[in-house]
């Protein structure tokens, strides 16, 4: 039997153990996630005298953020509109897919779920380039749409201005929707899978029709999945520059394109940092407001 000393020792060990387990990972995240954000904040408030000034001077001039916002307001706005539209499309496409897998998948659930993930085993860039070859004027889609007479309609509603699909708003939004779709499907699936299907029977026994049962039972229970999916789709989409680079034209560039160009091409670290900082602050505030609106405090 454990003596009092030994018991004391076990207790102390239990108190220290979690911190010992946590510290390596937390140290890594602090050093390479939190500290860089602080460095970014400081860099955003610095000014460079020339392109080759590698030691920018720090100032407390918060005007840089206003400058960044006003200079790149169209790219900022475009990023949020594109990401918002793509997220909405992801819900509209992803929810039915997740629903059919979870409710009607039966013994094929795992296989269908696998099919959702399979396309994403190929590289993000290669998929996006494949889209650009699909959407180009010589690709298969444009002539097909023309031959069935849909091109005029798409042109009229502004999806395909001038009979082109590539280098349009629609192409970039379509690419974003495509690339982040699984991040919507999987969390919605997880929340739908947890629902006890007998609840649906119960609703129908109580004379709810299919729509009412969905609206009052399934949808509220799947809100956490939609919430998680929205964050996992909107946030990467808002900061993306690959889709705009391959599928968009000069008038479709997003804030990510500007940051990438400022940072890696112009070596203008302060303004790239200021823009990144603005993007992060807007997204963080948006996330908090969204979490409050849906009443979900717990993100995970």
């Amino acid at each position, binding site marked *: 039997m454990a003596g009092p000393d030994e018991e004391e020792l076990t207790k102390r060990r239990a108190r220290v153990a*979690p911190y010992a387990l946590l510290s390596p990972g937390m140290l*890594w*995240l602090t050093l390479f996630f939190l500290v860089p954000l602080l460095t970014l904040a400081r860099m955003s408030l610095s000014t460079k005298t020339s392109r080759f000034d590698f030691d920018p001077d720090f100032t407390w001039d918060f005007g840089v953020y206003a400058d960044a916002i006003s200079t790149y307001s169209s790219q900022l706005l475009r990023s949020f509109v594109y990401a918002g539209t793509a997220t909405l499309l992801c819900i509209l*496409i992803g929810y*039915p897919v997740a629903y059919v897998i979870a409710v009607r998948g039966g013994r094929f659930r795992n296989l269908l779920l696998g099919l959702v993930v399979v396309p994403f*085993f190929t*590289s993000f860039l*290669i998929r996006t380039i494949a889209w650009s070859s699909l959407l180009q004027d010589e690709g298969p889609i444009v002539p097909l749409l023309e031959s069935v007479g849909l091109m005029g309609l798409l042109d009229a509603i502004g999806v395909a201005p001038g009979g082109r699909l590539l280098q349009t708003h629609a192409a970039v939004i379509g690419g974003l929707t495509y690339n982040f779709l699984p991040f919507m499907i999987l969390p919605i699936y997880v929340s739908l899978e947890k629902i006890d299907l007998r609840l649906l029977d119960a609703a129908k026994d109580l004379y709810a029709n299919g*729509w009412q049962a969905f609206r009052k039972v399934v949808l509220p229970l799947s809100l956490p999945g939609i919430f998680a999916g929205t964050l996992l789709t909107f946030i990467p989409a808002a900061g993306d520059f690959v889709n705009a680079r391959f599928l968009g034209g000069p008038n479709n560039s997003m804030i990510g394109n500007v940051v990438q160009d400022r940072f890696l091409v112009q070596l203008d670290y302060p303004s790239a940092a200021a823009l*990144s900082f603005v993007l992060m602050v807007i997204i963080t505030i948006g996330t908090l407001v969204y979490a409050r609106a849906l009443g979900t405090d717990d993100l995970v």
Partner: protein
Amino acid sequence: MSARAARPPETTAGRLGRWGITAIAVCGFVYLFLPIVVIVVFSFNDPAGRFNIIWRQFTLDNWRDPLASGPLTDAMALSLEIAAISALVATVLGTLIAIALVRYRFRGGKVVNLLLVLPLTTPEIVLGASLATLFIDRGVQRGFWTIVIAHVMFCTSFVALTVKARIRGFDWTLEDAAMDLGAPPWRTFSRVTLPLITPGILAAALLSFALSIDDFIITFFNAGSEETFPLRIFGASRVELSPQINVLATLVLIVSVALMLLGIVFRRRVERA
């Protein structure tokens, strides 16, 4: 039973709704696979110029030596190496965090959770740019190890959250039982804890590996002169898109589908046993 019989019959609208949802789901799957079909089909194309984006004619030439050495295969090898190291480190760090969170009650748990979620709710471009700013600020030359540092950072979060979700429902009293029966801590861990949590850890490790190998944006900011597979494709995409890209992508696809099917078969067998 009687309640069931009293249910109103399905209306036409209800039936239409059900068909509608299935139809959208089918379209969703078509959408998901459209570019994949393009990638595979174009691996058999004999392009006219240096850009393999317009169909000309069928050829098997591209498949004659899929792993022919050159910048693409070098880049792929580098990506595999980085993914292996990053997944290994991130799996260890993330699993330790997950065990601490599920197994113990302690002060600061909320802060830890927040610190895990934040990298996932921060746009990649901000993660990439901030880390690069740190390296520039400290005069660190960006290259192989800065890529690994970046990948471990975001993979650790994914691993910790995945493993945490998978091991939450376990019966941890089994550990106490083993200890009560006189098993020393290390033996308890290796014989009881580890076998319980291994499937979750493996899944998280595979996820890390996949995330690392496909990461472009964060790597782009922190690679220096190193060229991973996605970086190579991005860099080359201005001057050429060789069919070898499609061949390699198809190979990766085949290997991952095979692994996935094996996983499903294996799980079926375990469930049946």
